[in-house]
């Protein structure tokens, strides 16, 4: 099957339809302000759905913790913006956005336990400052709490549309846990002969469906009252999600710790199969690969920072970071092309520009 996409095509459309922004700061400001606005609306909704009752100390107070730390809010932002761009309102998309964010935070808590991560958004992870059992239980509670807004969707959207949204979420969670299983399996079996295609598959399942594809699909389906075919957002969401995840993984290696909010190089210590690690293992010398393999075969807590720093230096040396930066840019370019294809038929709006601004931000991202 041949691929119809090209950056040239994206840019030629871009030439014909100049973006709504005159300079970088314009779209960055729009992106930040709208992420903050929709994030605040969603957070309010999350608080509304968390019961104010016992047990507080080891459950409901902790449920507020991760959402209150203030993530980027991509998922609710994309969902609400897609809904409004297709003629809907914030009110119509809000319950779905709340569900997405609750489920996302549940994933994060469990993900931190699974990865044995130390920090999340500049604070110790829940299992670190509490314990693993409590953290897992809080994550379970958030998964359940994420279902109730979907039930309440029926009041606003009607039976047919709310059932459609429920099935979107069901698919989203299924893909995410399958993707997570794929990567956890690689780590458990210490798989070291992965390719870029393996990575693209894993990241599609683990990240893209729930970070971009389904938020866009759900928002557009709600906004259009079920008229739009959600499959038209698959490529856009996939390219956006992949660009986003690769860039996030690069930041884990090269950003300032305080700005990034997690431990720098933590992904190397955790043995996370990032594009950089996969590229390095494909291109380094046999004796270096052997050392990397043995580092990844010992328990996470016993892995030392010195070896992790050596692996990072190899990633620079073999061009793994550059390769990943380029791949992220290609993906963002593909996303821009898809955006103009899908959204050009809609009238101009702040929400449409907001989605465009996220892609432009990815293309021009500084590390």
């Amino acid at each position: 099957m041949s691929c119809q996409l090209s950056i040239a095509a994206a840019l030629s459309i871009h030439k014909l339809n100049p973006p709504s922004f005159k300079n970088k700061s314009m779209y960055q400001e729009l992106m930040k302000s709208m992420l903050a606005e929709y994030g605040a609306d969603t957070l309010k909704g999350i608080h509304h759905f968390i019961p104010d009752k016992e047990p507080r100390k080891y459950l409901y107070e902790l449920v507020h913790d991760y959402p209150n730390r203030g993530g980027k809010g991509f998922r609710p932002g994309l969902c609400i913006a897609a809904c409004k761009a297709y003629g809907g309102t914030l009110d119509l998309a809000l319950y779905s956005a709340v569900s997405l964010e609750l489920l996302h935070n549940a994933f994060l808590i469990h993900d931190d336990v699974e990865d044995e991560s130390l920090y999340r958004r500049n604070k110790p992870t829940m299992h670190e400052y509490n314990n693993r059992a409590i953290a897992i239980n809080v994550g379970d509670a958030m998964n359940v709490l994420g279902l109730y807004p979907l039930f309440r969707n029926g009041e606003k959207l009607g039976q047919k549309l709310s059932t459609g949204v429920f099935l979107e979420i069901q698919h989203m969670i299924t893909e995410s846990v399958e993707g997570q299983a794929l990567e956890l399996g690689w780590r458990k079996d210490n798989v070291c002969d992965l390719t870029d295609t393996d990575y693209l598959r894993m990241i599609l399942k683990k990240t893209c469906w729930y970070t971009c594809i389904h938020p866009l699909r759900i928002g557009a389906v709600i906004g259009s009252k079920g008229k739009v075919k959600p499959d038209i957002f698959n490529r856009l969401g996939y390219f956006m999600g992949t660009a986003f995840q690769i860039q996030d993984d690069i930041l884990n290696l090269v950003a300032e710790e305080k700005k990034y909010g997690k431990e720098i190089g933590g992904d190397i210590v955790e043995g996370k199969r990032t594009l950089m690690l996969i590229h390095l293992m494909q291109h380094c010398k046999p004796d270096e690969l052997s050392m990397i393999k043995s580092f990844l075969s010992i328990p996470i807590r016993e892995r030392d920072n010195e070896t992790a720093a050596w692996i990072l230096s190899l990633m620079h040396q073999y061009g793994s970071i550059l390769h990943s930066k380029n791949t992220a840019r290609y993906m963002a370019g593909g996303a821009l092309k898809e955006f103009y294809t899908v959204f050009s038929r809609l009238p101009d709006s702040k929400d449409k520009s907001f989605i465009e601004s996220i892609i432009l931000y990815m293309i021009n991202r500084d590390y």
Partner: protein
Amino acid sequence: MAAKANESEKKQQKGTTLTDDLFDVLNPNNMMNNAQRVLSSAVNVLEEEIAAGILAAKKIEKKVIDVEDIRDNPEDLMNRIRRDTHEAVDLFMDAFTAISKQLGFLSTTIAKETGNTKKTGPAVPEKKQENIVPVIEGEEPLTAGQTTILYMSLADDKATQPIRIQLQKTDFAGPAKQKIDARCIQLKPSSFILKPGEEKEVAIQIKLPKNCSPGHYSALITDAENPMIKTVVVIRVVVSGE
């Protein structure tokens, strides 16, 4: 930071736009091949995964049939009934075809035994056969876009004078309310004079549209003047390569 700001100012003085900046950043001439390769690989992965998901969902759908849920959803229920009915009709048509063939064989045998040479063509307007609608079915399944020709013969041994035949046809009715327009059927000839004792062959040319779905389709061919002259044409459409 200051250096970057100066660079930005210089660009603005030069009149460069954000689009130009994007071109600079993406550097399309150098990275085109790599981008194409990466995106192509990504799209393949996406399509494989979507296909795998659809297949898995279908398998679950076949395994799990929630009766209560189906009852609660009248639209789904009707779709299911339509689908099942169509399958039942297909089975019935198969059985009917077999019985018709058997009856044709028996009547031929009887005719031979009694020395009666009357033709037992598929659309003879005879009272004894008024309850039997002949079925014409292609031997091979067809694929969307394909053209085929089936033949039927008409004869009226009892007629004492020529009769005028003017054939008309209906749309093909297929699975899940799918239809193939009657214009896809060409009858050659569609109108003619049938003389006493004459047997006339009619070619039924069927040109399937490129977008028709797989399944069994049936259409009715009748004579505008004589309702006793009728036949059902049945075709089976399959996915290419099936």
